[in-house]
Every structure is written in structure tokens, then in C-alpha cells.
């Protein structure tokens, strides 16, 4: 029997690595902390520079994951601890309860329509819309299974009063489930895996823009991060693809993008996040396509149009769509009390004077931060990315033999670079896996460590 490989993170890099490994008949454990694979790419509306619909190109890959019987999905799970060495890692994975028996759930979605708790902020729409306490992460989710958010479920987390009285509430989803898949008693479990190699593809999160007080993110209503804006323009987003202001639900007439929010700034992150210039350009084009009358402005310092087709895309945005690019860093955003419009303060470096301009909507191109706080013995760089052993001679290896790293957790990068690395790492891991011994799955504790 072949050894198996653990892929941590089910974003586009993790999916690619898992598929490449599975193609060679190697058993893969794909651990993902969310209830669906897809990662950040699943949040995107379109991808630059081709303006391909992101989910249309990602969904077949996600669906392919299900077709391989040798890919074992460990959703809602996180790696807790890794011991051992190349060829013989012992990984403890904490699997959080979903409160739904996924072997029975067929993703019909009836429960998500019937659940009476309606005001749960939807993570997939980054809190821009609400969902129920039982939910399927997004329509194209893989696996398409329901999950109960225990924090909001009336049954699992009843109000104080009911708790005292010892009443059991609700149970609506259980009643309506056609396959009787609801399991309120599910507990988190720790799964011990023996794997030959590990591929780290935990990707990135957006930097917390609330750390930058002068922009007032989280305070001003019509201020969005670029990922939020991506949801806003997406057909599967909170407003079905309509760009509407949070404050009054009207279409904006002027939108500004602010680049380098939290990147290229010694106060926050030294590195350049590499994706934001093109993402802002793409979003400006999307905004123009949605609302032809809208005026789009991008505040930048250096437009980094370095990839294949990027510069042409940038020129198109300028010429064809009339997106305005102003060189200058915005230092402050102020909200107008009456209209909830936003005033941005900056120096137009071409004109050399202080300018204040009013916008209906402002989008922050927020930096990325790597999800590198992992219980893995890998070394990190000073910027917090996973360190490569020797980028030139051993391109995807970490400082620990048998652990490989791909995607944005090893440095800010875009989709093709992540996919390229994923394939490279998969081949490396396959080599170790093929050489090594069998694996063993053992459920260690049933109902031990964590609840909810």
C-alpha cells in the first residue's frame, strides 16, 4: 500500500495539489477549516486579466476532487499537531462538529430555508448579508453539505433563559430533513493520520484593515475591502451583483480604490501584496460594466502590472473604460455625516498639492497576511511567510524535509503561480509517499477536546 499525503488548505493551490496526487493513485487527506473547499478564489467574481468567471473555472476543479475516491476530505477541520519525520509524519487533525451527518446529507438545502434563525452574518459574503444558522457555505460548495453554526443555533446555543429552564428549543431542521441527517449530539473529534508528506497550502487572509485607524474601516458604512467589493459585484453576492451602498442601498456614482492598504508600509507590512493592483483594475472594470455611468478612480503609487497580459489589461482599463489612475497615497478618509459619502485626503503627486475628493464608495485594496501560524515545525521569514529551504535548488521545500509549501503562504502571489507550485509540490510529495509505508486512520477520541 502506498503512503498518503496530507494537504493542508483547500484553496486553489491545495485542490490542485490534491488532484495531481490523486491522479497518480496516491491517497490524499485534504484538510480545510471551512465547510467547503475553494479558498479565496471561490469568493471572487472574475479573475484578471481575462475576466474569466472565477467560479466557472474553479468549480470543475472542485467537482473533480469529489470524483477521486482516494481524496479524503476533512472539512471543518484544522491540523493540531504534527510529529515525526519525512515518510512518517503523525498528524492530529481536529475535526469540528458540523452537527449534520454528511454521509446522509444530500445538500438539498431545505433546512437552510426552514431554519428560523435568520440573522446570522454570512461568512461567505463577509457579513454583507445574512444567512440562517444552518447553512450551505455557497451554492457551488464542495462538498455541498449543510452545516449548523452552533453559535447561533437555538438548539445548540439556546438563550440563557431556556438554558436555565433546561428546555430544548427549535429542532426545525431535524423535522424537515428528508434524509434525517441532523445530529445535534455531534462532538469534535481528533483524527490521527499517518502521512508520508505534508503540503502546506493554507493561503492567506486579508490584513485586518481596522489596524489602520486613519481609514476608519469598520466605522464608515460605504467603505469596503476589495474582497467585500468582489462579493458585492458577484452574481452570487449579497445583492445579486448589484453594486449598492451599505448606507442607503443606492448605486454609487463615484468609486475610489485605495492601493497598498497595509502593504508596502513599514508600519504594517513591508512586502507588496502583488495581487491588489490588478484586482483593483479588474474591479474598476467590473464596476464600469455593472454601472456604465460610474466614475472609477484608483489611487496608487506604482501600478504593478507585471504578469502575462496585465499591462495590456491596465491599458484597456485606462483607454476603454476610462478608469482614472491617480498617483498618491490616501492618508485619511472622512465620512460626511449627512450623505455618508466619504472624503479621501491625498496629495496628487503629479500636481503637487493636497487634494480632498468626495466619493460615494471607497474600496480598500487590503494587503494579504499569510496563514502561517501553523502547528508545524516550519521556519518563517521575518514577514511571516513560510520560509523556503533553498528557493533555487529546491523550490517548494520548507526547512523541514517532507513538508512542502505552495501558494500565498510562501509569499504573495496570484493564481497561476500558486497552481504551478501546487503541481511541483505534488510531484515531490508523491515521490516521498510512494517510497514510504502505509497509513492508518484511527479515531482517537470521540467527544473529547472541544465543543462547538
Amino acid at each position, binding site marked *: 500500500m502506498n503512503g498518503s499525503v496530507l494537504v493542508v488548505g483547500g484553496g486553489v493551490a491545495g485542490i490542485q495539489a490534491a488532484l495531481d496526487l490523486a491522479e497518480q493513485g496516491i491517497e490524499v487527506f485534504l484538510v480545510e477549516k471551512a465547510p467547503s473547499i475553494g479558498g479565496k478564489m471561490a469568493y471572487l467574481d472574475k479573475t484578471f486579466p481575462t475576466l474569466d468567471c472565477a467560479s466557472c473555472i474553479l468549480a470543475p476543479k472542485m467537482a473533480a476532487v469529489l470524483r477521486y475516491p482516494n481524496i479524503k476530505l476533512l472539512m471543518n477541520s484544522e491540523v493540531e499537531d504534527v510529529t515525526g519525520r519525512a515518510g512518517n509524519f503523525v498528524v492530529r487533525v481536529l475535526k469540528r462538529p458540523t452537527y449534520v451527518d454528511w454521509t446522509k446529507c444530500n445538500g438539498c438545502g431545505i433546512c437552510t430555508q426552514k431554519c428560523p434563525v435568520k440573522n446570522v452574518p454570512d461568512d461567505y459574503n463577509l457579513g454583507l448579508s445574512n444567512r440562517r444558522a444552518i447553512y450551505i457555505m455557497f451554492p457551488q460548495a464542495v462538498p455541498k453539505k449543510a452545516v449548523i453554526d452552533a453559535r447561533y443555533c437555538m438548539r445548540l446555543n439556546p438563550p440563557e433563559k431556556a438554558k436555565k429552564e433546561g428546555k430544548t428549543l427549535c429542532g426545525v431542521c431535524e423535522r424537515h430533513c428528508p434524509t434525517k441527517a441532523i445530529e445535534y449530539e455531534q462532538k469534535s473529534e481528533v483524527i490521527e493520520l499517518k502521512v508520508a508528506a505534508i503540503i502546506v497550502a493554507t493561503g492567506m487572509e486579508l490584513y485586518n484593515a481596522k489596524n489602520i485607524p486613519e481609514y476608519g474601516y469598520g466605522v464608515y458604512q460605504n467603505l469596503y475591502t476589495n474582497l467585500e467589493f468582489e462579493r458585492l459585484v458577484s452574481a452570487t453576492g449579497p445583492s445579486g451583483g448589484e453594486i449598492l451602498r451599505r448606507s442607503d442601498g443606492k448605486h454609487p456614482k463615484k468609486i475610489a480604490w485605495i492601493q497598498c492598504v497595509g502593504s508596502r508600509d513599514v508600519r504594517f507590512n513591508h*512586502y*507588496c501584496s502583488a495581487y491588489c493592483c490588478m484586482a483593483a483594475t479588474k474591479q474598476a472594470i467590473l464596476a464600469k460594466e455593472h454601472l456604465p455611468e460610474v466614475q472609477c478612480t484608483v489611487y496608487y503609487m506604482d501600478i504593478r502590472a507585471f504578469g*502575462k497580459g496585465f499591462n495590456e489589461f491596465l491599458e484597456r482599463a485606462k483607454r476603454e473604460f476610462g478608469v482614472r489612475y491617480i498617483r498618491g497615497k490616501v492618508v485619511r478618509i472622512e465620512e460626511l455625516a449627512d450623505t455618508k459619502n466619504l472624503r479621501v485626503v491625498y496629495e496628487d503627486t*503629479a500636481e503637487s498639492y493636497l487634494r480632498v475628493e468626495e466619493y460615494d464608495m471607497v474600496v480598500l485594496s487590503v494587503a494579504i497576511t499569510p496563514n502561517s501560524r501553523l502547528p508545524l515545525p516550519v521556519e518563517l521569514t521575518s514577514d511571516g511567510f513560510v520560509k523556503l529551504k533553498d*528557493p533555487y535548488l529546491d523550490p517548494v521545500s520548507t526547512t523541514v524535509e517532507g513538508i512542502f509549501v505552495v501558494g500565498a503562504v510562501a509569499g504573495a502571489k496570484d493564481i497561476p503561480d500558486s497552481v504551478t507550485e501546487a503541481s*511541483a509540490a505534488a510531484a515531490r510529495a508523491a515521490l516521498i509517499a510512494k517510497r514510504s509505508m502505509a497509513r492508518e486512520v484511527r479515531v482517537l477520541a470521540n467527544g473529547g477536546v472541544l465543543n462547538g
Partner: protein
Amino acid sequence: MDEVRIGVYVCHCGFNIAGVVDVKKVAEYAKTLPGVVVARDYVFMCSEPGQDLIKEDIKNQNLNRVVVASCSPALHEITFRTAISEAGLNKYLLEMANIREHCSWVHHEKEKATEKAMEIVRMAVAKARYLEPLEELEVEAKKSVLVLGGGVAGIRAALELANYGFDVYIVEKSPTIGGKAALIGYIDPKTKGAEVVSKMVEKIRDCPKIQVFTSAELVQLTGSAGNYVAKLRLNPRFVNSRCTRCGECEEVCPIEVSNEYNFGLDKRKAIFIPFKNAYPPYYAIDYRVCVKCGECEKVCRYKAINLKEEAKIVELRVGAVIIATGYDPYRPFKGEYGYGLSPNVITLFQLERLLDPESPTKGELIVGNKVPKSLAFIQCVGSRGTTLGAKSYCSRMCCTTAINSAIKIKEKYPEMNVYIIYKDIMTYGSDESLYEEAGKKLINFIKFEEKIPKVTISPEGLFIDVFEYTIQQEIRIPVEAIVLSIGMLPPRDIEELIAVTRVSCGGEGFVREAHLKLAPVEAPTKGIFLAGCITGPKNILESIRMGSAAAAKAMSLLSKGKITIEPMIAQVDEERCSGCGICVAVCPYSAISIKSVNGDRIAKVEKALCMGCGTCNASCPSGAMQHLGFKDVQLLAQTVAALRGESYG
């Protein structure tokens, strides 16, 4: 043909379809269609119970065609094919009707959407009546790979493949492997290009699985994924492995040409060693310039030179091909920023050579006889549409390389004034730290935008006139040397490459990948992979990673020793074919040839080569060329059904 018994299965997809389309009504309607025996609807056809429903019907109702009305075939066609084949039906007797992406997701009016869904189902049923069972082909796959290009990407790919136990052949057109990375002084502040390359080359030398062909060219590539036949021409090197690199031959050689390994900084002889760590490590004679005077042969004590050597043709059988032929540096025209008019205007690549301790100047930055007191880099030369004739793309590596070199220069000559005249600094990702470092090293950055800098060469020295963007002021910078940060061009011989390997080319002149985002190392043709700058500008690290990835992809294609070929390909009706040969001309994969069968000229499709694009089908004047799975009769039936015609037959 047997009696057609079709089963139609309409999927709710939860609320995805059922929310807009009245699925019950669609199923009821399907029952009325000719040939339909059974029609059902279910919440999730793709789920296990849904699939079981189909399987049972096939067995109980003796179905011989299945239509599934659900989502895009891209998602679940394979799922349902597998399901019906498990029930004993040929898996190509399935037709998908996409009523989700094509209907429910894009419409809101329930009645009209239902009507459209019914039409889609009607078309699918009409086509299904004419479906035929098809058989997949399996061909043997050779566990060997041809790597075109011996640069870092190619070497990396070869090393990975050898690691997996594959036989690898590296084909390099110059007399040494190592590529341009070996010629870059410093690729990051601590790493010398030559060092990295020589470490990689060392591994190649020790690896018995890798065979290196230098001074070689791929002249023909036939066959298909798993079974390519590559014909190489090995140009004569005239020097064999007895060479001890004593160098006496070089001294007597009368021919001197510009040294392309120092980017024209100095001259080399016709017999030469490209650079110190060149591999294979012996002299080579440039067959294009050698006049065969025989001086070297006379002087060689080791009998290592044989001027009678001739070009050889070698045939290799490989399973896959990795194209990693790299790029050419942009060639500035004479007078572009003063290039060619003054010895003090050099290119970034020449500067990289000067910074290398192995360079003709021993690492001293000597430009036009002396170390300049001030030096300016001009960025975006030949990139980003800056000048006339410049490419529209950004060459990705020049900003980082220029800044890195500038830092190196400042470390060595702290007194030198270094300017970088740029449009946008593209130190993306962690390279931003170099830009930050540059400020601390007192490197001066000057930004221009639309108006390009002008270089004036006068007896007093060089002047660069720049319209400084951030002060909106024309300024004049007196410098003693100018470095043009030239970008990347597609390799000069890319057209031959395209002709031989049948890859296609994007608008910017580089090879096009199968998918820009999700399949960056695969060519559209199965079995051909891409690595390095052949798909567009990359830096060394990215090229190396791409080499690894291309190797991985080649391995996963060939590792089973067999390759399955989709049966949905072109087929010739030999009765109808007139042998006109139009299809041969239009086929982008060279899969069709004209064969003589009993004296008749008839087109023949090489099944393993055909990718099923349908071009031949469309161009065939006699209708002899048919696309299996999309035969004329099937498509016409579908079309007639779409036009509400009753039937077609």
C-alpha cells in the same frame, strides 16, 4: 438500430433549478417526447440515490440512452457517465441537458424558464436518439521525456523527472547548458547566477538518467502524447571529451566574433568555451563561423579535435515534451536611448556580465574604458509600450534585476551616483524589500510617465532628459554611463518551434498555455508542457518552479505507462471521402494524412493525435469527416428540435 429507449432525469439541484424551473412539468413533458420510456425528477441526480435511480431504470426498463437535465456537463458529465457504465451501458450513450447554468441561474420568470428548460430537454432527447456507443482507446506511454532548452527551467524539469525515474533528454541549441541565468551576475543580493546554475549542472552530471544533447535542434516531432518521435539534428561540435581545456587551440584560432555569452562585451574565437562552468566542460567550435583552417587540429596535443565531424540526425522516442527554450533579451535598435552610438550605453545583461567576477573585466564595472562616476538605469526599454517597437507587456524581472544590480554597484562603489529612471517599480511580493534597501543605499529614483526620456550624447558626456512626473518638470541628468533595462522577447526561433511542436502563440508572441490561470504549464496539446519564459516573462525563481511543475505534470501523465484517449474524435467515412486534402491543411494537430487505399486517395485520422476540435469536420466538402459524439445527424436532430421541428432522420 435497436429500438431507442430513452430515460430522462430532471434534477432539482436543491432550489438551484427547482426554484425557477417547474421540474415536474419538464419531466412530464419529457415523457411525451418520441423515444422516451421513462422520465423522472429528483432533488439531486448527482447524489448516490439519484444515480441509483438511473441505474435501476437502465436495468429494469432496459434503457439504452440516458438524458440528464441538470447542471453543466463540465461538472457532472463524468459522474453520470460512470453511473451508466456501472449499469452496463456504454458511457457515451449519455446526453446532458444544461438547465442550470443555461436556464435557471440566468432567468427569473418561472414560466418562461420552464418553457426554455423543456426546449433544452427536447433538443437533448432529439440528439440522444442518434447517440452511438463509443470506445476509449488506450495507448502505451513511454516513460521518457524530451526537454527542449537547457536553461534553469529545463534543467530543473530534467532533474525532477530523473528523480521520478524517467529517462530525460535535454536538447540545447548552444554548446553548453545553463542558459541565461548562468550569465547573470547576481540574481539576488546574496546569490550568484553562475553558482546556482553550476550547482544544478553538477547534479545533472551525476545523474545517469539524463542525457544532454548540446548544439542540437529539434527538427521534427511526430506521434502523440505517450509516443512522440523526436528527430534531433546534432550540429558538429568538432571537439570531443578528450579535451583538457588547455586553451592552445583558442590561441591559434584566427576567427574572432562577438561573444554572445558576454552579450557582445568582448570577442571570442571560433573555438571557445562559453563560460567557466560550462557543461559539457570542453571546447566547442562554432560551426557557423569556422573556416576549417585546421590550425586548432594541428596544435591540439590530445587529438580532441576532429574537423571532419558532421551533423548527425538522432531519433528519440519519448512520452512527453517539455518546452523550456526561454527568451531572447530585447534587442534595442541603434540609437534607442543612444544604444550603439556610445560605448557608455550598455544593456542590463551586459551590466550583469560586468558585475560577475568571471567577466572580462574581473567584476570591475568598466564602461567605456573607466569606472563611471555616475550611472543611470533606464527601465522599460522594449517593454510596456514605452518606445516605438516596444512590446506591450511588462517584462517582470527588469525592475528587480536593475535594483539588485544597483545595490551591488553601490556596495562596491559607494561614491557612484546611481539613478533608476522608471515608470512604475515592479518589485512585487517580497522583492519590495530590495526597493526599500535601495533607498537606504542612496539610489536615486526618477519617474517618468508618457514622455519617454531622451539621451543626448555630446562631447561633454551623456545627458538624459526626463520629464519628471512627480514634479512635472523637465530635468537633465548628466551621467557617465547608461544601462538600458531591456525586457524579454520571445526567442528568435519560436516560429520553428511552433512549426515543429504545433504549440500556438499568443498575441504577445509567447507560447500560449492551456489555461492562463489554472493550467499554466500545459500546452493545449496533450503531452506537451511549458516551463520558463517561453510562456511570457518570468524571473529565475518562477522559471525554476515552472520547471518543477511541468515535470510533475509530465510525470502524472506518463506514470501509469498508459494514456487513455477520448473517443470523441474525427472519423472518416471512407465511402464519401474524395481525398481532396482540405482537412489535412486545416488540422492544427497534423493528425490527418492522405493515404492511398486500393488506389483511392482517402484521408486517415491518427486517433492518438486528434484532439477533437472539429475543424476538419466543418471544412470537409463531402461530409465524409464526422466528429464522433457530434455527428452531423446528431447535431441536425438537435437543431431541428430547437426549431420545433418534429423529427429528423
